[in-house]
C-alpha cells in the first residue's frame, strides 16, 4: 500500500495579489514568511505578531468585541437621606 504524498505534490498554489484581493479584500491579513518580509522591508520590518495575530479567520476576535459591546445589566439606587 502506498503512503504519503505523490511526487511533486505541494500544499501551496499560486495566485496574483490582485486576484486574491478580489476575493478577500486588500485589508485582510495573510500569513507570509517573516524572513521574506524582512528581506523585502529591510529596517522597516516590525514583528508585531504578539499584539496582532495574523489570521484570515477572525471569528473569535469579533465574538470577543461583541461581548465587550453587550451591556451589563445593572440598577443604581441613590438613597434619600432621612
Amino acid at each position, binding site marked *: 500500500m502506498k503512503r504519503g504524498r505523490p511526487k511533486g505534490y505541494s500544499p501551496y498554489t499560486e495566485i496574483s495579489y490582485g486576484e486574491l484581493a478580489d476575493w478577500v479584500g486588500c485589508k485582510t491579513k495573510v500569513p507570509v514568511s517573516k524572513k521574506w518580509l524582512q528581506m523585502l522591508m529591510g529596517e522597516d520590518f516590525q514583528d508585531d505578531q504578539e499584539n496582532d495575530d495574523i489570521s484570515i479567520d477572525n471569528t473569535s476576535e469579533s465574538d*470577543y468585541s461583541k*461581548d*465587550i459591546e*453587550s*451591556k*451589563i*445589566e*445593572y*440598577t*443604581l*439606587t*441613590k*438613597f*434619600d*437621606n432621612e
Partner: protein
Amino acid sequence: MNNYFSHLVGQNSVKKKLSFYLDAFHKTSQCPFLLMSGAKGLGKTEFAKSFAKNLYNRDGDRRSFLELNCSTIKNNEQFFEQIFLPLIADNEITILFDECHALPNDLTMAFLTIFNTEANSRKTFEWNEMTFEFNFKQQTFIFATTETDKIFPPLKDRLTVVDFEAYDSEDLADIVQLCIPEISFVDGVEKKIATTIRGNARSAVKRSKEIALYCGAKSINTFGHKEFDDLCDQVGILPYGITHTEKQILQALNSCGSATLTGLAAKIGMSKTALQKDHELYLLNKSLIEIDGKRKITGKGLNLCKTF
C-alpha cells in the same frame, strides 16, 4: 447592637450578623466581603439593599447601591470599561454581584487577586497594561447566589457567608399582613394562607397581591375563610401551595402505587430533570411523596389526593 432591619420579617440570625457588621462599619469604615447564600425568594437582595442603605459616606450621605446581574457580565474588559471606571473608581458605593455563580472565569480570577486583601483596605489590580485602584473603605462588595456550589472555591474562601433560612408559617403570615395593612384578616385565616405559600418571602408577597386584587374587585377590606376559599377556587391555589403538575404527580402515584422516575416522567409528559428539580423536591419537603428506589405516595399525600 442596633436593629437596622426591623421592617423586614424573619431571618433573625441574618439580622444579627448584618447588624454586627454595620455597627463595626460605623466605627471602622470597613466591612467584610459578604456572600448572601440561600434558596430563591428568601430575601437575599432585599437584605443586601437594606444593609447598603445603612452604609454612610464620609460626608454623612447614604451610599449609592449598585446591583449587577452577573450573568450579563461577559469578561474583564467589559466589566472594567462599563462598570468599574464609570461607576466604582474613586466613588463611595456598595456593589451587589447578584447570581455571582455566573461570573465569567477571567473576572473570577481577577477577584481572587482583588479580594485577597490581608489587612489592607486598598488594593491595586493591574490588568492589560492598566491599573485599577480599589479602596475598601469607600467601596463595599456584596455577593449573592442560590448556587454556592458553583462559585470557584478559592473565591468563596475570600467571602464571609451569610446563610438565609426558610421562613416558617408564622413569618409568612406576617409578610402577607405587612404587604396589605389595609386589609383585616379574620378567624385566623392568615395561618391558612401561610400553609399555601411555598416557604419563601417572594411567594408571600405574590399571595398578598392576589388577596389585594380580590378585595379590590369585591370592594371589601376584611378577608376570612370564605373569601380565601373563593380566591383559591378562582385562581387555582391548591393545599400546601402545590402546583397543578404536582397534583398530577400525586394522582399518578395514587393510581399506580409506585413508579420509577422515567415512568413518572412519561406519565406526566415532562423531562426527568424538570420533574426532579422543579417538583419532586417540594413534594418530598412536604412529605407528600417518598423515594425508596421508586417514587411512592405517603399517607399524607393520599389524604391530600382525597380532597381533589
